[in-house]
C-alpha cells in the first residue's frame, strides 16, 4: 500500500515545460530521504491547465501544485510528504483568486468545467488497466454484450450524442446504418488523425485514458456487428500510439479483446494505423483510402462508408472524443445522466482546446451551451496582458471567427453554425486587438490550400485564387472589387467541392468579411493594417515624448534597428526594422506605436 499517489502530468504540454525533469528530481529526493516506497509516482494524463505546467497533484490530499521547478522538489518532499504541511508557495496563484488555491474546485479555471470525457485524465495511470476498471471501466461493455445490438444503437441515439469530430451527425443513427447493412465482415474505425492546427484534445484523451477509446470501439463493434477495428492515429503522436499499444495488450490479457470476449461469443480484433501527415485524411473516405495503403483522396458519397467502407466492407467511423463518451452512455442509467447536460439539440459536454491570446491556455471540458464569455473570461481568465478581446476562431480551418459582440453565444452545434462557424474539433483560438483578421483568413486559407488533395477543381483552383487575392490585400495591392470576388469564389467552392475540406475551407474568409469588413477595407483603401501584422502596411515608431530610454527594446531587437542612449528617447531605423514586433511586446510603457507607413505625427491610428 502506498501512502500517497503523486500524479505528475506527463502529457505533451507539461512535458515541454519540463515535467520529466521534475519527475527525476522528485524521485531522487525521495530516494535520498529513503522513503521512495511509500509513494506511487505516476506520469499521468493531462489535467488540462497547460498554462501553469508542470503540474503535480497529490492524492488523497487533493493538492494541486503548479509552475514547478526541479529545485522545488526538496521542499515539496520535506514539507508536504514528510511534514504533512501544504507548500503554499507552490499552489495556484493568479489575479482571479484571492488566496493561493488548493484544488480543482477552488481554482477558477476548473470552476465552470464538467468532466465527462476527461473524467479519468490526470486521475488514473493511463498505463494501468486495473485503475481504469476501478473507475468503472469496461462495465458498459459488459452491459452491451448482454444487449441486443439495435437496442445499443437506440440508446446512444436517444442519449442525443452527436459526432464530436466536426459535422455533428447523430452517432446512434450512424451505428444503425452499419448494423443494418448486409454483410458478415464489418469494421469500426477510430479517427484519431487530429489535424486542426491548434487543437489537441484527441491527443490528450488518447494519452490520458486510452482504455476508454478501446471500450468505446468495442461497444460500437457490438452495436454495428463489426469484429475488427482500426485506430488511425497521427504519427506525430508517438506517446498516444505507445499508450494505445499498451492498452491493447492489457485488454487482450484480460480477455476484453480477442475471441469470445467475456464469454459472450463476441470477437474483436484491434489494429493501429499510423497516419502519414495529410489533413484531408480527417475526411472519412480519404481516411479509408489511406488505411488501404493508397493516396488519401476522398471519393464521392454515396455509397456511404456504412455500406461500402474500408476494404469495401460496411464501416463505422467515429472520432476519438465521440468514442470516449460511449462508455458513459452505455453503462447502467448512463444515457439519462448524459442527457441532463447540454442544450436541446446538443447533449453532453465538449472538450475545447483553448489557446491564443488568452491568459489560461489549456484543455477545457464544458457543458454544451456554455457561452463564449464563460469560456474565455471565467475559465480562460480573460485576455493576456489585459488587452482587448477581438474575436475567437472556432473549429479551426473549417470553422469561422466569432466577434466580440457575439460573446454571449452559447457554444453548441446549431448556434455556431448560425454564426458562420462550426463546432469542428473544438479548437478555440482567442485573438486580441493585435491580431489582423485579413492575416488570419490568409493563414487558414494557405493551410487548406496546401492540404487540398487536388482531386476536385473548385477546391484545388478556387482556394489558390482566393489565397492570391488575400495575399495581394495584405501586401497593399488590394482593389475594391476583391471583396465581392472573394465572396463569390467562396460560395462556389462551398457549393461544388467534393468533400468537407473544400466545403468548409472558405468559412474563415466569409466570417472575417462578415464581421470585420472594415478591416479589409482599411487594408484595401487606406493601405493600413491597424493590428500591426501585415508588414508592408504599417510601421513602428517610438513615442518621443514618453519614451524614457530604458533600452529594453534595444536589447530585444533581433536586427539592431533601435538606436538611442540610455535615458534618451530611442528611435527605430525603418530601413533595418523587420516589423517582428519584439519591441512592442517588450515595452512596458506603451511607447511603441503602430502607425501608417511614412507618418510620424499621426500616432496610433
Amino acid at each position, binding site marked *: 500500500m502506498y501512502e500517497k499517489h503523486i500524479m505528475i502530468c506527463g502529457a505533451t504540454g507539461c512535458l515541454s515545460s519540463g515535467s520529466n525533469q521534475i519527475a527525476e528530481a522528485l524521485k531522487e529526493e525521495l530516494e535520498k530521504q529513503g522513503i521512495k516506497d511509500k509513494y506511487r509516482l505516476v506520469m499521468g494524463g493531462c489535467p488540462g491547465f497547460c498554462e501553469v505546467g508542470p503540474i503535480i497533484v497529490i492524492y488523497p490530499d487533493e493538492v494541486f501544485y503548479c509552475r514547478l521547478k526541479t529545485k522545488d522538489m526538496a521542499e515539496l518532499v520535506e514539507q508536504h510528504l514528510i511534514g504533512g504541511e501544504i507548500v503554499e508557495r507552490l499552489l495556484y496563484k493568479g489575479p482571479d483568486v484571492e488566496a493561493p488555491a488548493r484544488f480543482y474546485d477552488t481554482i477558477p479555471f476548473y470552476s465552470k468545467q464538467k468532466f465527462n470525457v476527461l473524467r479519468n485524465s490526470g486521475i488514473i495511470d493511463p498505463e494501468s488497466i486495473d485503475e481504469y476498471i476501478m473507475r468503472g471501466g469496461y462495465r458498459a461493455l459488459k452491459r452491451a454484450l448482454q444487449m441486443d445490438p439495435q437496442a445499443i444503437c437506440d440508446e446512444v441515439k436517444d442519449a442525443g450524442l452527436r459526432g464530436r469530430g466536426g459535422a455533428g451527425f447523430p452517432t446512434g443513427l450512424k451505428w444503425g446504418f452499419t448494423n443494418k447493412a448486409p454483410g458478415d465482415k464489418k469494421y469500426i474505425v477510430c479517427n484519431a488523425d487530429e489535424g486542426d*492546427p491548434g487543437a489537441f484534445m484527441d491527443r490528450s484523451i488518447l494519452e490520458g485514458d486510452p482504455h476508454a477509446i478501446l471500450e468505446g470501439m468495442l461497444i460500437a463493434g457490438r452495436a454495428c456487428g463489426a469484429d475488427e477495428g482500426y485506430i488511425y492515429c497521427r504519427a506525430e503522436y508517438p506517446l498516444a500510439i505507445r499508450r494505445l499499444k499498451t492498452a491493447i495488450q492489457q485488454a487482450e490479457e484480460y480477455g476484453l479483446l480477442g475471441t469470445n470476449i467475456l464469454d459472450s461469443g463476441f470477437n474483436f480484433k484491434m489494429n493501429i494505423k499510423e497516419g502519414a501527415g495529410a489533413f484531408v485524411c480527417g475526411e472519412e473516405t480519404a481516411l479509408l483510402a489511406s488505411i488501404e495503403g493508397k493516396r488519401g483522396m476522398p471519393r464521392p458519397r454515396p455509397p456511404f462508408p456504412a455500406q461500402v467502407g474500408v476494404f469495401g466492407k460496411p464501416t463505422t467511423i467515429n472520432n476519438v472524443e465521440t468514442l470516449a463518451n460511449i462508455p458513459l452512455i452505455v453503462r447502467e442509467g448512463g444515457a439519462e445522466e448524459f442527457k441532463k447536460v447540454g442544450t436541446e439539440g446538443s447533449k453532453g459536454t465538449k472538450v475545447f482546446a483553448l489557446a491564443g491570446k488568452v491568459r489560461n491556455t489549456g484543455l477545457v471540458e464544458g457543458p454544451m451551451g456554455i457561452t463564449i464569455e464563460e469560456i474565455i473570461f471565467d475559465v480562460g481568465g480573460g485576455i493576456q496582458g489585459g488587452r482587448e478581446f477581438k474575436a475567437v476562431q472556432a473549429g479551426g480551418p473549417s470553422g469561422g471567427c466569432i466577434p466580440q459582440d457575439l460573446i454571449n453565444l452559447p457554444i453548441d452545434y446549431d448556434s455556431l453554425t448560425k454564426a458562420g462557424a462550426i463546432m469542428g474539433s473544438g479548437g478555440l483560438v482567442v485573438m486580441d486587438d493585435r491580431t489582423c483578421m485579413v492575416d488570419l483568413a490568409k493563414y487558414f486559407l494557405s493551410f487548406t490550400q496546401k492540404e487540398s488533395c487536388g482531386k476536385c477543381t473548385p477546391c484545388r483552383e478556387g482556394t489558390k485564387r482566393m489565397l492570391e487575392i488575400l495575399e495581394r490585400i495584405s501586401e497593399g495591392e488590394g482593389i475594391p472589387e476583391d471583396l465581392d470576388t472573394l465572396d463569390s469564389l467562396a460560395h462556389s467552392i462551398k457549393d461544388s467541392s467534393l468533400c468537407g475540406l473544400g466545403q468548409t475551407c472558405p468559412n474563415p474568409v466569409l466570417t472575417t468579411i462578415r464581421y470585420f469588413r472594415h478591416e479589409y477595407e482599411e487594408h484595401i483603401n487606406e493601405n493600413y493594417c491597424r493590428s500591426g501584422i501585415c508588414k508592408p502596411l504599417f510601421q513602428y515608431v517610438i513615442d518621443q515624448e514618453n519614451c524614457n530610454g530604458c533600452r529594453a527594446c534595444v536589447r530585444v531587437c533581433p536586427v539592431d534597428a533601435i538606436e538611442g542612449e540610455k535615458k534618451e528617447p530611442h528611435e527605430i531605423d525603418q530601413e533595418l526594422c523587420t516589423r517582428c514586433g519584439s519591441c512592442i511586446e517588450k515595452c512596458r510603457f506603451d511607447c511603441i506605436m503602430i502607425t501608417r507607413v511614412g507618418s510620424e505625427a499621426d500616432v496610433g491610428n
Partner: protein
Amino acid sequence: MQEQTSKALSNFEGKPNEVIPMLQAVQDETGYLPEEAIRDIADLIGIPESKVYGTATFYSQFYFSPRGKHSIKVCLGTACHVRGGMQVMDALERELGIKAGETTADFKFNLERVNCVGSCALAPVVMVGDNVFGRLVPKQAKEVLEKSDPEV
C-alpha cells in the same frame, strides 16, 4: 543503405495495404526514402514503382533526399501563428541563411514548418528532436541553434 532498407522491410508480408507502414519503416531507418527503397517496396508488393511513389509523395511525412542532422521544427499552428510563430521562423531563416523546407549546406540543420505540436500553451514553439522551446521571441533564434548543436 541497401542493408538498412532490407532490414526495415523484413517484417512485412507484402500486402498492398502495407505500403505506408513500409515507407515509414524505411524512413525510420534511413532518415529519408532513397530511390532504391521505393523500388524494393514496389517489388515486394508486386505493384508499379509509380504507385508507391505516388502514395509517398501524397503524404507530408516523407522525404526524398537526405536531411540535416537536426530538424528544426517551427510550429505554425494557429495558436503559434497568432502569437508570432512566423516572426520566429523569419529569425531562424536569417540565422541559418536558408528558407523553410531547406537544409544547410553542411547538413547540420534543416528547417521545417509543422502544425501544432500540442504545446499551444507555450506558443510560439520550436521543436528540435525531443526538445521543446516555448514562449520564444525572435531574438532567441540563435540560442535555439546553439542549444541544439554545441558546435554552432
